[in-house]
C-alpha cells in the first residue's frame, strides 16, 4: 500500500524489499522534515514507515534519538491526512517504551478518541492505552467507560481489548469498568460481544465462583457470537478440570449442547474440548468423535485439518474412539494437502494393528520428502510411539529412521530422529548395535554440535559394553581430528570410557589420548591429560569414580561453594562433601506417549528447584550454619483440596537437621491471618528447635512458615518419624471487598493431617551410568544381604515400583523396567545417604507365590547399610 507512493526508492533498492538497506541514522535525519511547514503527508508517511520497519527489524534506538524522533512526529497531528494520522498511532505504539515523555500526546489522542471521525477513534484508543500508566489511567477513565459502551463496534472493541491489556497493569482501575463491559456483552456485534466476554473473564478469573456465575448467566441468556461461544467452551472445560467436576455437571451439559450449534467453529471447539477431557466414558465421547468424523470428509480443508489433528492428539488416549474413524482417515491418506495426509497416516499408525505398520510406513515414505520439517517431526513421534507399542517392529522402524537421518532437515527434525533411535536402543537391547551404527554414520557428517556431543556421550556409555567395542574407536577418533572444540572434548571423554572398560584397548586408547594432549583447545587438552593420568593408574575404583560415573554435584552449588572457599581461604583442602548434590533432571523414564516431543535440551545453567530452595532458606537468619541443603521432598498435601486453608509441606533435609516448609493459602476472602505457624508433635526423639511464622496471610496470597527440627544424633537408625501438625494463627476478620481488616483479632487453630518422615527423605538419588563399576568401587567391606517375601504383591513390576518409591533411590541401567514374560529380575539402585555416604542396592526379585526379594546393600558406612535393611524389613 505504501510502496506505490515511492517508485524511485523501490527501483534503487535491490530485490523486492524497498526497505532492505535502510540506515537508521539516515532515516532519523530524514525525520527532520516532520518539523517543516506545511506538512507533506506523502513523504512523512514514507519516513514513518521506514522508522517502524527498522523498529520491527530489532534495530536499537537510543533514548535521546528516539525521543527526538517521537517529538518531531507529534507535530504531524497538525495534518488532517487520515493515513498519516493512523501511521502516527502505529508509531506511538511502537515507540511507547523507547521514547521518553510519550504522555505528551495524551490530549491529542483523547481528542481523537472522542471526536467525530470514526476511523480515528478505535486506533486512538489503542494508542492511548499503550502510553498510559496506572497513575495516568484515572485521567482517561471517564473516556474509557464511555468508549466501551459506544455504539460504533470498532470503538467499543478497541476499548475492550485495550482494557484487557490494562488489566495486567492496573487491575483495580479496570475492575471498575465491569458494568460497562457487561453492557457491551449484550451488544449485537459479534466481535464486541466476544471482546466483552474476554474482559469480563479476565477480571474474574481468579474467583472461581464468579466465573461459574458468569458462565451460568451467559449460557442461559445465550450469546450471538460464535467466538464468544468458543471462549465459553474453553472456560467451561478449564473449570471442569480445576474442580474435577463430574460429567453430570451443567458445565459438561453446556459443552455437549454446543455440539449442536449452527456454527462449525463452535461445534469443533466443543468436540475438541470433550475428547481432551480426562476420563470420558465411551458414551460421552461418541457424539464428539462422530462430529470429528464428519469433519474428516468436509470439503473445507481447514475443517479436515482440525479434525485429523485433534484425532491425532488423542489417538493414544482414546484408541478405540479413534479407530471408529479409521475408514475416514484412510481416505485422507491421499489428501492433496500433505499436512492432512501426514496427520492421517500418523494417527493410523498410532492406533493401527501391527500388521498395518508396514503398509503405512511405505505410504509415508512415498511423500516424506515433500512435507515440512514440522510434520516430519510428527511422523517421527508416531514412530516412536509405535516402537513402544510393537517392540518387534523395531527393525522396520530403525531402517526408516536411518533413511530419514540421511535426508536434509533442520535441527528439530534431526534431534527428534536421534532421540527416537536412542529410545529404541534403550528399550530393545538387541537393536543396540544397529542403532549405534546408524548414529556413528550420522556423526560423520553432522552440523549440530548438540547432537554430535549427545551421540558421543551415548557411544561412550554403550560402546565399551558391546561385543566388539573396537569398531567404534575409529568414529570417535575421527571427531577429535575433524570437529569443533565442544565435539572434540566430548570425543575425548568417550574414548576414555573405552580405555577404562576394555583392558586390551587400553594401550591404543592411551596412544590416542597422548595425541589429544596436544590439541589447540584448553578444555580438550585438560580432559585428555586428566584421563591419561587416571587411566595409567589402572585402578578399577578410580576409573569408576572419575571416568564412568563422574561428579554428581549441583553445578551451581559447586560454583557457589568454590566461590565461598576462595573468599575465606583456609589450610584445609576444599571438601567436595560440602557441595549440594545435583537433583534429578537425570533421565527418568517417562511413560509418555511421545518421548521425542518432551525431551527438551537441558538448559545448562538454569538453577534446579533445589538450588532455589537453598537460596531461599539461606536467606532466613534462623537457618544459618546448617550446611548445604541435602534434599528437598516433593510437596505433601496436608489438607483436602477444597478447604478454608490449603497447606502443603516440603521437607528439606540437611546433615543433622530438617526444615519443614509449610506453604499455606488462605481461601477465605473475609479473613486476614497473622503470625501463622504449624506446631509439630514428633512421635520419636526428633526435637523441634524453632518456628519461623508467616507474618501475614491475606486472602489468596500464598505464604510460607517454617519449622526447624534436629534429627536424633545418638540413634542414626531412627530415620522415620510421624508428626502431628496443627496450624496456629491470629484471625482478623475483614471486609471482603476492600480487604480492610478489623482492628483486633482472635487466636485460632486448624488441625492438619499427619506428616511422615521416611527413609527416602534421608537419601538423595544419584544416577550411576555404569552401576557395575560403582558397585566395585564401593566394595564389599560393609556389604549386608537379606531376603524378604512380599506376599501381597502380584507382579514384578509392582514390586519394583514399591521398592523404588519406598527407598527414594535412583534406578540405574534402566533396571526399573521389567521385561515382559519374565519371572525374575534384578534392580539396581543408587543414592547418597545424608552425611555424604554412597549407598547402592542390588535387589534380585523372583516371582513365585508373591514376590521374593534378596536385597544386597553396599555403602561406605555401616550404619547406612543397617538403616536400609531395617527399613525394608
Amino acid at each position, binding site marked *: 500500500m505504501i510502496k506505490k507512493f515511492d517508485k524511485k526508492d523501490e527501483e534503487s533498492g535491490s530485490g523486492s524489499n524497498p526497505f532492505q538497506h535502510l540506515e537508521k541514522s539516515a532515516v532519523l535525519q530524514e525525520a527532520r522534515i516532520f*518539523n517543516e*511547514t*506545511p506538512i507533506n503527508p506523502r513523504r512523512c508517511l514514507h519516513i514513518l514507515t521506514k522508522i517502524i520497519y527498522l523498529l520491527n527489524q530489532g534495530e536499537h534506538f537510543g533514548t535521546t534519538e528516539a525521543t527526538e524522533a517521537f517529538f518531531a512526529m507529534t*507535530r504531524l497531528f*497538525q495534518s488532517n491526512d487520515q493515513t498519516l494520522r493512523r501511521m502516527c498511532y502505529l508509531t506511538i505504539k511502537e515507540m511507547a517504551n523507547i521514547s521518553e*515523555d510519550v504522555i*505528551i500526546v495524551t*490530549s491529542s489522542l*483523547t481528542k481523537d478518541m472522542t471526536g467525530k471521525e470514526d476511523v480515528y477513534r478505535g486506533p486512538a484508543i489503542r494508542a492511548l492505552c499503550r502510553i498510559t500508566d496506572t497513575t*495516568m489511567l484515572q485521567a482517561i477513565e471517564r473516556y474509557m467507560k464511555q468508549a466501551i459502551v459506544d455504539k460504533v463496534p470498532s470503538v467499543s472493541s478497541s476499548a475492550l481489548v485495550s482494557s484487557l491489556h490494562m488489566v495486567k497493569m492496573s487491575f483495580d482501575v479496570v475492575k471498575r469498568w465491569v458494568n460497562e463491559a457487561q453492557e457491551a456483552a449484550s451488544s449485537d456485534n459479534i466481535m464486541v460481544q466476544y471482546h466483552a466476554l474476554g474482559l469480563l473473564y479476565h477480571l474474574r478469573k481468579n474467583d472461581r465462583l464468579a466465573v461459574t456465575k458468569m458462565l451460568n448467566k451467559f449460557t442461559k441468556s445465550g450469546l450471538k457470537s460464535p467466538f464468544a461461544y468458543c471462549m465459553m467452551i474453553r472456560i467451561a472445560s478449564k473449570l471442569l478440570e480445576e474442580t474435577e467436576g463430574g460429567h453430570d455437571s451443567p458445565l459438561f451439559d453446556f459443552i455437549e449442547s454446543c455440539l449442536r450449534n449452527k456454527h462449525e467453529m463452535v461445534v469443533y471447539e466443543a468436540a475438541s474440548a470433550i475428547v481432551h477431557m480426562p476420563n470420558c466414558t465411551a458414551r460421552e465421547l461418541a457424539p464428539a468423535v462422530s462430529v470429528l468424523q464428519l469433519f474428516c470428509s468436509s470439503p473445507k480443508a481447514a475443517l479436515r485439518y482440525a479434525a485429523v489433528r485433534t484425532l491425532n492428539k488423542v489417538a493414544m488416549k482414546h484408541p478405540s474412539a479413534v479407530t471408529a474413524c479409521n475408514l475416514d482417515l484412510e481416505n485422507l491418506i491421499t489428501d492433496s494437502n500433505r499436512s492432512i495426509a501426514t496427520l492421517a497416516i500418523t494417527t493410523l499408525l498410532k492406533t493401527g494393528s501391527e500388521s498395518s505398520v508396514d503398509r503405512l510406513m511405505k505410504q509415508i515414505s512415498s511423500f516424506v520428502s515433500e512435507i515440512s520439517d514440522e510434520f516430519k517431526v510428527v511422523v517421527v513421534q508416531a514412530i516412536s510411539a509405535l516402537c513402544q507399542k510393537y517392540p518387534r517392529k523395531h527393525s522396520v522402524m530403525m531402517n526408516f529412521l536411518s533413511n530419514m537421518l540421511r535426508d536434509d532437515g533442520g535441527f528439530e527434525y534431526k534431534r527428534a530422529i536421534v532421540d527416537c533411535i536412542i529410545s529404541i536402543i534403550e528399550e530393545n537391547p538387541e537393536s543396540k548395535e544397529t542403532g549405534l551404527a546408524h548414529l556413528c554414520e550420522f556423526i560423520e557428517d553432522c552440523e549440530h554440535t548438540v547432537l554430535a556431543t549427545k551421540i558421543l556421550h551415548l557411544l561412550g556409555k554403550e560402546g565399551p559394553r558391546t561385543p566388539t567395542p573396537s569398531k567404534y574407536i575409529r568414529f570417535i577418533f575421527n571427531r577429535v581430528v575433524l570437529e569443533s572444540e565442544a565435539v572434540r572434548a566430548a570425543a575425548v571423554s568417550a574414548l576414555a570410557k573405552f580405555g577404562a572398560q576394555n583392558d586390551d584397548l587400553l594401550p591404543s586408547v592411551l596412544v590416542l589420548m597422548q595425541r589429544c594432549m596436544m590439541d589447540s583447545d584448553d578444555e580438550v587438552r585438560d580432559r585428555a591429560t586428566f584421563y591419561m593420568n587416571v587411566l595409567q593408574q589402572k585402578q578399577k575404583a578410580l576409573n569408576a569414580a572419575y571416568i564412568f560415573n563422574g561428579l554428581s554435584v549441583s553445578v551451581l552449588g559447586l560454583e557457589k561453594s568454590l566461590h565461598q572457599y576462595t573468599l575465606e581461604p583456609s589450610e584445609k583442602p576444599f571438601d567436595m562433601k560440602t557441595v549440594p548434590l545435583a537433583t534429578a533432571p537425570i533421565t527418568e523414564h517417562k511413560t509418555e506417549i511421545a518421548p521425542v516431543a518432551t525431551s527438551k535440551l537441558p538448559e545448562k545453567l538454569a538453577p534446579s528447584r533445589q538450588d532455589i530452595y537453598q537460596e531461599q532458606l539461606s536467606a532466613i537468619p534462623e537457618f544459618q550454619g546448617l550446611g548445604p541443603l541435602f534434599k528437598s521432598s516433593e510437596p505433601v498435601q496436608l489438607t483436602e483440596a477444597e478447604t478454608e486453608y490449603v497447606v502443603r509441606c516440603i521437607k528439606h533435609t540437611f546433615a543433622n537437621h530438617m526444615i519443614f516448609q509449610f506453604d499455606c493459602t488462605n481461601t477465605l476472602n473475609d479473613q486476614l491471618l497473622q503470625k501463622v505457624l504449624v506446631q509439630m508433635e514428633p512421635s520419636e526423639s526428633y526435637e523441634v528447635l524453632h518456628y519461623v511464622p508467616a507474618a501475614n496471610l491475606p486472602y489468596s496470597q500464598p505464604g510460607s512458615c517454617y519449622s526447624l527440627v534436629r534429627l536424633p544424633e545418638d540413634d542414626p537408625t531412627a530415620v522415620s518419624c510421624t508428626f502431628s501438625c496443627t496450624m496456629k494463627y491470629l484471625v482478623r476478620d475483614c471486609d471482603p471487598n476492600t480487604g480492610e481488616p478489623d482492628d483486633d483479632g482472635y487466636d485460632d487453630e486448624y488441625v492438619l493431617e499427619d506428616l511422615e518422615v521416611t527413609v527416602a527423605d534421608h537419601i538423595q538419588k544419584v544416577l550411576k551410568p555404569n552401576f557395575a563399576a560403582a558397585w566395585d568401587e564401593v566394595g564389599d567391606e560393609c556389604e549386608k544381604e537379606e531376603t524378604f517375601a512380599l506376599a501381597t504383591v502380584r507382579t514384578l513390576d509392582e514390586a519394583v515400583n514399591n521398592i523404588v518409591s519406598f527407598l527414594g533411590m535412583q534406578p540405574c541401567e534402566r533396571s526399573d523396567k521389567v521385561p515382559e514374560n519374565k519371572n525374575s529380575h534384578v534392580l539396581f539402585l543408587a543414592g547418597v545417604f545424608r552425611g555424604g555416604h554412597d549407598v547402592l542396592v542390588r535387589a534380585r526379585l523372583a516371582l513365585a507365590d508373591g514376590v521374593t526379594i534378596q536385597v544386597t546393600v553396599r555403602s561406605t558406612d555401616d550404619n547406612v547399610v543397617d538403616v536400609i535393611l531395617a527399613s525394608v524389613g
Partner: protein
Amino acid sequence: MGLFDKLAGWLGLKKKEVNVLCLGLDNSGKTTIINQLKPSNAQAQDIVPTIGFSIEKFKTSSLSFTVFDMSGQGRYRNLWEHYYKEGQAIIFVIDSGDKLRMVVAKEELDTLLNHPDIKHRRIPLLFFANKMDLRDALSAVKVSQLLCLENIKDKPWHICASDAVKGEGLLEGVDWLQDQIRAMKT
C-alpha cells in the same frame, strides 16, 4: 506546495498559515481561549485539563492559525521547548486572579524568553491577562508590571485583559497578532 495551493494563495483564496504556541501556567485558561476562537460548530462543550498538548485550528480574516495548546502543569512545562522552533508567535496566558503564582508565571516567561530557540527571534508575544471577570482580578497594567513586560525590548508585545468564558477581549488580542504577523511577513 501543490500547484493548486499556489494558485489559490495567489488568487487570495487560501489564507496564509501561521503556527502559534499557547503557553502559560495550568488553569490560566489557555484551552478555554483557543476553544472560544474556534468556529462555533467545532467548539468543545467541556474543557478538561490538557495532558501534553493539543493542536487546534482557527481562522481570522486574513490568516489561518494552527495553535499548539500546551499543558501548563509543572511537570509538562519542560516539554514546551520541543515546540519553540515551530512558533511564529506566542500567546502567553496569565490567570489575573492567581496572585500567588504570578512569580511562577514570571519565572516561566523569563525561561522562555532566554531560550536559545526564542531569544534571538523577533516573534510577536501576545499576553492575555485572563479571568478579568473575577472580583479580585489584577488589571492588565498591574499584570504587566508584575511580569516586567517593559523589559522586553527586542520583540513586539501586547497585553489585553480577557474573559475567556464569555469571550471578551479575545478579538482585540487576536487582531493585534494578525497585524503583527502580516507586518513581519511582508
